[in-house]
């Protein structure tokens, strides 16, 4: 049938292998000069879209990212993995700090309407803020059905049969398109964006937009009060004998 237009959201986050440091003002983390890459769950989302295209189910894949100018690198990666074109909603660095899933999902919803999308795949959460909200909010703004935490997606008579990872097992749901899917870790193994493909991706079209073009109010609704390091593990003590160990354990009430 090859008629679906799939939109995929991808976020630029601090690379998973980087040790994150809290900013001296305690209102965020250090991002300057830190390696960034695409959110791993969004990579899985892109991969799923590309596989749908390879199965001739999807017609076109559009990668979408909202954020500062550097997000274009992330979109290039998405294009190198197999997306056909990209849309970058450019948000000034300063403004980007204040926005969250609410504003992003509004922008994505508007883009989905403009692009006439049949399916929206996003990662279940980003590894920087761990919100796990964008996909759900997007579905409600669009008034589309949603299948979150997908670990398998199968097309069945024009509908999607999605296996979801829920607490203590798997749940299978059938959703009508258009719909929103959020990708869980086990959905697929994303391919690597190789150098030749990144080079080729430079020729693919990338559209730039402003939040104002989409008519989205960018007023922050959440204020960050404080960002702290997680508590460090306290050092242990060495005991000399079994008797001492028993008495120490008694002291802390373990026995």
């Amino acid at each position, binding site marked *: 049938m090859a008629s679906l237009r799939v939109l995929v959201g991808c976020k630029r986050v601090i690379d998973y292998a980087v040790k994150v440091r809290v900013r001296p003002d305690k209102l965020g983390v250090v991002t300057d000069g830190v390696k960034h890459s695409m959110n791993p769950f969004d990579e899985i989302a892109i991969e799923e879209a590309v596989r749908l295209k390879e199965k001739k189910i999807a017609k076109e894949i559009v990668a979408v990212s909202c954020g500062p100018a550097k997000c274009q690198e992330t979109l290039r990666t998405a294009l190198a993995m197999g997306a056909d074109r990209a849309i970058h909603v450019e948000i000034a660095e300063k403004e980007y700090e204040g926005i969250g899933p609410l504003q992003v999902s509004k922008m994505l919803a508007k883009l989905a309407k403009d692009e006439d999308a049949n399916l929206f795949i996003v990662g279940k959460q980003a590894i920087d803020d761990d919100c796990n909200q964008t996909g759900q909010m997007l579905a409600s703004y669009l008034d589309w059905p949603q299948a979150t935490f997908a670990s398998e997606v199968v097309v069945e008579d024009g509908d999607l049969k999605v296996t979801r990872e829920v607490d203590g097992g798997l749940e299978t749901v059938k959703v009508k398109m258009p719909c929103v899917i959020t990708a869980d870790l086990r959905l697929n193994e994303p*391919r690597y964006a190789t150098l030749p493909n990144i080079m080729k991706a430079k020729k693919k079209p990338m559209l730039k937009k402003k939040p104002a073009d989409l008519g989205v109010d960018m007023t922050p609704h959440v204020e960050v009060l404080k960002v702290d390091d997680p508590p460090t593990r306290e050092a242990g003590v060495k005991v000399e004998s079994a008797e001492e160990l028993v008495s120490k354990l008694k002291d802390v009430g373990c026995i």
Partner: protein
Amino acid sequence: MANNELRYAVKQLYKNLIFLGREYPKGADYFRERCHRAFMKNKELTDPEQINELIGRGEYIIKELEALYMLRKYRAMKKRYYDTQ
């Protein structure tokens, strides 16, 4: 002229390897040094068959590296979000 084509293929292979090496767990410099050494060791080769065989080996290493990175990321995610205890 076949030699020119091979020279290009070898250069491409080297570029692709160095690009992948940027993410190598032990650091890009560590990787580049070793990669360079491996290429230099065979720089005198002229037999197309031998060169092709070595290119094949290089491509195999690319596949292995991709798999390594994928697994490394997968394991990190699994440890962070799924191993609860």
